[in-house]
Structures are given as C-alpha cells and as structure tokens.
C-alpha cells in the first residue's frame, strides 16, 4: 500500500461494458485513462451509465467478458473491492448507524489492524480536515445532511486510498449547502491529490471540480475534455445542450454565412456544406442598435436575473434565440434589436443522425 497523501493510482479501464442479467445494456464497452492525481467527473443524465462505470472501477460490478480494470498498470478486474484500496462516498452516505462518528471514520483502519493510538491520531487529523470537530462522539442520526457528507468523506479518505470514488455526494443536500460544500470539496480534493472519480448529473459541480469531464449519454461516452473544451467546443448537440444554455440553429449555409430569417451570420473557418447545425452560447451575443446590425430580431421577453438579464428574441433565427445581456443594457419587450455575434462564437455541430 504505497498510497500516501499527494499520490494516487493511475486508472485504466479497457473495453468495459456492462449488460445486466435481464439483458439491459447499462454501459457500452468503453476505454478510459485517468492519470494519477487527476479529478475526473462522469457527467450525464440518470441512466447514462455513469454510476455503472464507477461501480466497475470500484469493484462492485464485474465488467462484461473482455473488459479490464487496471490500477497503475496492474490488472484488478477480478480483485474484489475490499482489496482494491479505494475510498468510496455513496449518495446515501451509508454511514454505519451502530457506530459513532469517530468509529465510522476509523473503521477502515480498525479492519486493517492499525493500532489504537495511530488510529485515533488519524481520525483526529481527518476530523480537523473536514471541519467536524466536536462531533466525534455523536451518533449518525444526530448529524445534519452536510455533517454526514463530511463524515462519509473523512471515512473514505482515512484509509489513504489510491483512488477516491464519489457517487453524487452532494445530491442529497439543499441547493445553498450544495454550493458551499462544492467549493470546500474542491479545495480538499486538490489538497489530497488522490486520483478522484466523481459521478454527478449536475453540470455546475462537474465544471468546478473536474480536471476533465466525461459526458455520457445512453451508456456511451459522448465527449471527454476539460471543462472549457466541453463548454466551448461541444462535439454533439447532446453535449451542447446538456452543458450550460445553448442556442441550436439549423440553417442553410452560403459563402461562410448562416442564412437566417433576421439576416446573415458569419461563421468561423470555411465550411463547404449546404446546411449546418450551429451552437451559439447566450452570453456570446451582444445587443446593439438594430440599424447597422447584420442580424436583428424583436425582443419577446426580458427576465432580470440580477447579475445579467436574459432576453428572448424572435425573428432573428428560425427559433427563439436566448441572449444573456449585461444588466446595464436597456431592453424592453417589443423593441427591435441588432445582434452581434463573433464568428468564432458560432460552433458547428455534426448533423443529427
């Protein structure tokens, strides 16, 4: 067990698919490399196979024949979870109700036969690290949701795992707490430097925590990339729409321009196709005077959100366009506005199957 703080195992899954006994295909065979110390987020809607992939890495599910799981190049496929040295945080936290907070945190060390003194020291270290001082002797049913989440994390990290696996660890919490703990979790994961695989359906969590994000759809990997790559250069309509807000425009192409009802919009690069599916993020559209603009439309509605305002514009594209304008712009429903979009902000997507 060489895992100490600041080191994590490199993980490779090779052609891992999963078909359940009733014949449902939860995961198409997938290959994925996760480097030591990296935080990788598996992101997708429910039923996309992300939890199945996590459970295969954990050793709670066996991949279909031919699939392999490697830690630091060593084949772990047939090694049961209890001998993989992985820390795991469950969505339900799965804290042991018959043990106190410190007994929960120290359980993995007790199983490993770590002497009482050393164990107490390690538990104290984690209690401090996860900010739960004073709760050591509480029963689990005396803790709030956020406290349970911290105990679950402390318990998983206590054994100095080579890999930390988190299955929607923040989903059970209310929104405000989730935001706060997300930032805390991020700092903690960076400080620990353990290879981390994090499953979520929440794109904000994925963006903030992930070094890389794996977007999954219907048991397949849709795209792998850094949060920036996933956001700015989605490779499919599914990814574009799942991450952030996106205007998807289907339009004919003419001399490097989208031909739209409200005018023409230049696209970056040259595309020699008769038609295209393009994505434009709402915040990349600037609202200007209607007269000189190459593209214009009529404001349908304005919603003031605080830090910005969201306009819905009709007549510019063949569908309603969502525009995020600064909160200082004067805009009223019914007005005609010009829309200025940099050609680089127009992202062409492969046509739908």
């Amino acid at each position, binding site marked *: 067990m060489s895992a100490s703080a600041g080191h994590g195992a490199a993980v490779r899954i090779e052609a891992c698919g999963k078909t359940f006994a009733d014949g449902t295909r939860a995961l198409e065979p997938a290959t994925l490399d996760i480097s030591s110390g990296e935080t990788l987020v598996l992101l997708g809607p429910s039923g996309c196979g992300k939890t199945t992939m996590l459970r295969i890495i954990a050793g709670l599910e066996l991949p279909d024949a031919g699939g392999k799981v490697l830690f630091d190049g060593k084949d772990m496929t047939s090694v*049961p979870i*209890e001998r993989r040295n992985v820390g795991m945080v469950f969505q339900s936290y799965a804290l042991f109700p018959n043990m106190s907070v410190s007994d929960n945190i120290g359980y993995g060390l007790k199983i490993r036969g770590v002497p009482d003194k050393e164990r107490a020291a390690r538990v104290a270290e984690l209690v401090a690290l996860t900010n739960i001082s004073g709760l050591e002797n509480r*029963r689990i049913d005396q803790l709030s949701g956020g406290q349970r989440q911290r105990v679950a994390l402390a318990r998983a990290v206590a054994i100095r795992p080579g890999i930390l696996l988190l299955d929607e660890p923040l989903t059970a919490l209310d929104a405000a707490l989730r935001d706060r703990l997300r930032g805390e979790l991020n700092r903690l994961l960076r400080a620990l430097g353990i290879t981390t695989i994090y499953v979520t359906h929440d794109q904000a969590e994925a963006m903030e925590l992930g070094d890389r994000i794996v977007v999954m759809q219907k048991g397949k990997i849709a795209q792998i990339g850094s949060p920036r790559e996933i956001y700015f250069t989605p490779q499919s309509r599914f990814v574009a729409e799942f991450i952030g807000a996106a205007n998807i425009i289907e339009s004919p192409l003419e001399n490097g321009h989208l031909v739209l009802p409200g005018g023409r919009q230049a696209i970056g690069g040259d595309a020699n196709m008769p038609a295209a599916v393009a994505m434009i993020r709402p915040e990349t559209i600037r609202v200007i005077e209607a007269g000189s603009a190459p593209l214009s439309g009529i404001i349908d509605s304005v919603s003031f959100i605080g830090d910005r305002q969201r306009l819905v514009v009709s007549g510019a594209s063949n569908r309603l366009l969502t525009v995020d304008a600064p909160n200082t712009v004067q805009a009223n429903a019914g007005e005609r506005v010009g829309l200025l979009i940099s050609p680089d902000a127009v992202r062409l997507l492969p046509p739908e199957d």
Partner: protein
Amino acid sequence: MSHRSFVWLCLLPLAVVTAAFFLLPMARLVVTGAEGPQGIAGYLAILTEPRYRATLINTVVLAAVTTIVTLVVATIAGMFLQRHRFPGRAVLIAMLTFPLAFPGVVIGFLIILLAGRQGLIGDWSNRLFGEKLVFAYSIYGLFVGYLYFSIPRVILTIMAAVQKLDVGLEEAARSLGASPWAVQRDVVLPALAPAFVASGAIAFATAMGAFGTAFTLATNIDVLPMLIYTEFTLAANFSTSAALSVGLGIITWFILALARSFSGSTVAAAG
C-alpha cells in the same frame, strides 16, 4: 349531548370488555394465588418448592434455547431467501410459513410421526444401528416442536428487516476493506438487532406458554404450562396453579422488558 360525553360513551364498550375479560380475571387470579393454606407465601412456593423450581428453570431454559436456535436458523435462511432469486423460491417460502396455519396439537402430532415410537427417525435408526431412537415424548420432542413453531414467525420478520437493509452499508464496509465475515459482524447483524429482539421476544413468549404441543406429546413433561394444568385439573389445587400462572406471566413479561431495554441500551452505547 356534548362532543366530550359522546366520546366517553364510545369508550364505554371498550371499558366494559377490558374490565370483564382482562382486569377482573387478572385481579381474581392474583387474589386466588394468595388464598392457599400458606396465604401470600404461596407465591414463594414457586421458588422454594424443588419441583416447581426445577420446572420453572426447565421452562425458561427450553424457551431460551428455542429462541437462540430459531434466531440462528431463521437469520441464515431469511437472509438467503431475501437476497437470492431462484426457481421454487416462492414455494419454499410458502412451505416455511406453513406451520403458522397449525395449532399446537397438530404440531405435537407431527413430532410423534417424526420421532415417536412408530416415527420415521426411529425406523431409520433401527435399520441403521439396530436401535430405535425415540424422543418425541420428552422435552427434546417439545424443543423440536417449538422450533417448527417459531421459525416461520421469526423468518418473516428477519426477511422484512433484510429487505430494508441499505445495501450501501455493506458496500461501504467492503470498500473500507472489510471481509464478508467482518461485514456481517460489524454492519449486518447490528442493523438486524431490533428485528432479532422483536421476533426473538415473540419466539420466547410462545415457547414459555405453548400448551397444546406439550399436552399432545406427554402429560409428564416438566414445563410450566403443563404443571399449571396438572395442579389445576388433577390436584384441584387452585391457589398454586393461580400463583404459577402469575409467575409465568411475570417472568415472560420481565424477560421481554429486559430484551427491549437491552436492545435500547446497545443502541445508546454506540453513541
């Protein structure tokens, strides 16, 4: 009539039934127990008279052993049945719960068919070892009968508890390095403890008081319900049988209360 007096009127039938069938006979029983030649000391005779004391110990030990063996068998079987799906599972569960439909007399009869003088076990042991093994008419036969009686009750409770068990708890323990045995010891069995106490208490109480099975097997088995019966019908010793009845009730109640507080204190001790 006001709303309040209407409510009181509705409670009247309950009060009458409670008084007639519960409070009055109970009070009469307690009084009768003290009306023997020894007066109130008649109660002490349960403990001082060697025959009564031996019977009392016999009964408690039999009930305790029945409870423990039932819990062990029912836990292993219940866990397996709840966690595995196989052809014939539903039929097996139905068969396991079948004894619930039988009164004690029928169960006693079944024990005689199994281990009596013409029983199956006697037949086989005779062929194999040349000696007839007969234990139906003793406390061992009664033990087998009580097991048969208790297992279905306990197994259903355990299966329900296993179903409610969060599989995540076991997976979490395994991820922390616990072997399958350690998972059972540290996670599964503690989580099932309330079910053990609840179903064990029922098994114990049943084994303390069951009469039909004992009566079918033999009239000279030394258990408390049989003793009460013989004192009452054969010796016409009203006061002793009343005292013994009260004693039986108190012991059963006391052990149930003990089990309940014990399970409560283990939960608290974990904090």
